[in-house]
């Protein structure tokens, strides 16, 4: 049986591998947004921009900080049984000058991470629902690429 794949959160990232986060960029001041800006007004108080381009954000950045989840989070997190702890990283994208949170790729432990470490975006299953794997972006150390 072939499993189907779908985004765990629609419209936040592409489903190709490797993926890109989907953001917006103000046509007036150049400010980036993640997730995409839906309100139609730039949040830079010095900018009255109302026009935004959909953009794919940089796939790589450096760790701002990191931790893990040792206790099972409450819903709407869909936990595997038994729960498996996972690492989490906040990664700063150099060009966009913003920090994006995300889980760290499965099997990468906190002990392997440090502030400033280069990371790249990958796609992994967040949880499965019937025959569908719900995919999400995760951060993986560039040095851990297969």
């Amino acid at each position: 049986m072939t499993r189907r794949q779908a985004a765990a959160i629609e419209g936040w990232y592409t489903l190709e591998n490797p993926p890109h986060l989907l953001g917006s960029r103000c046509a007036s001041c150049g400010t980036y947004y993640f997730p995409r800006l839906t309100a139609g007004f730039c949040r830079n108080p010095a900018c009255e921009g109302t026009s935004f381009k959909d953009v794919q954000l940089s796939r790589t950045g450096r760790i701002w900080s990191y931790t893990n989840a040792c206790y099972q989070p409450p819903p709407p997190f869909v936990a595997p049984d038994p729960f498996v702890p996972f690492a989490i990283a906040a990664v700063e994208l150099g060009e966009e000058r913003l920090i994006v949170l995300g889980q760290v790729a499965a099997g990468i432990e906190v002990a392997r991470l440090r502030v400033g470490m280069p990371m790249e975006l990958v796609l992994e299953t967040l949880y499965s629902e019937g025959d569908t794997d719900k995919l999400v972006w995760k951060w993986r150390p560039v040095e851990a690429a297969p």
Partner: protein
Amino acid sequence: MSREVAVLGVGMHPWGKWGRNFVEYGVHAARAALRDAGIAWSEVQFVSGAATMRCGYPGYVAGATFAQALGWQGAQVNTSYAACASGSQALAAARAQILSGGCEVALVVGADTTPKGFLAPMAGHRPEDPDWVRFHLGITNPTYFALYARRRMDLYGATLEDFTQVKVKNAAHGAANPNARYRKPFTREEVMESAMVADPLRLLHVCATSDGGAAVVLTSLDYARRRGLKAPRIAAISTVTPRFASNEVEMPDIATDSAVAAEPHSFRRSIAARAYEEAGLGPEDLSLAEVYDLASSMELDWYEYIGLCQPGNAEGLLRSGATRIGGRIPVNASGGLACFGEAVPAQALAQVCELVWQLRGQAGGRQVEGARIGITANQGLFGHGSAVIVRN
């Protein structure tokens, strides 16, 4: 014209996990504060409630809920919600009413009943709400606390020992506080050996969620003078929002602002700065501080954010003993969240209650000798700063 108001009375319902209706805690605290002030409920002209989102409709309209429970007497009413900063906003509303001449006597009340375990978002499939998304990804409140802690370790050389010493210090302070939920001194070993929640934070570094209630009676300076009372005064209330581009990962967001077109700003640093500016005071004037130790490590962040030391020097300040009772600038003499656990809408008011008891010399076994000026600092989800300066 003075922009100060007097704090004539403070009161609390002890923090705990009592499992009763939040209104009980609020009324208990309100009556205690009114007794403390020597003011009858019938004299209160303005009731300002800090809302709770977890106790149904009565919580959304907390000001009126408390007024009804105390007995409708026709006072004007307000309810404020600003997550963990709700208490400060309710206080600010009461102060504004007094300073604009709308009333002379105001009662401010916050109380909460909390569920067990992690605070969780509202139910349903709501991907447009960042608070829902981050829980869907498995990012809980301790995740954010741990990100700040780990960054201190990697950038400034903070150690697990430092975070643990904050907990041990606050537990020792709170052991002498009858309103604290946890009044047990903890040893270094007990803290270090508690279960890992979010690396590097252990269970005993992370604050619990609690039930509790706190209340404050504010009056105009004229009213206090006519009554012949010399009371501690509110010298400043900061309720600032962040400034774009905010440069720290903030609960509940998945991403920060982009600093491509604007300079990055630290939100937490701006919270106390606004209060100092309003009061015409600085960190060097403080006798003590009550800061939001959601995790023990975050107390160190606050040392820097409220200006007790330069960035990167908080560990040195802690290790010097300066922030213990008896030190140069005691922090969280009440025991802080480490000993209280968080009762969201009551917490900012509880911080003010502690400063008032300290400034009156009524803090018993946790008294900071000669306390004259204190500051509170906290932060509510979705961009709510909160800092209050109380002075003699």
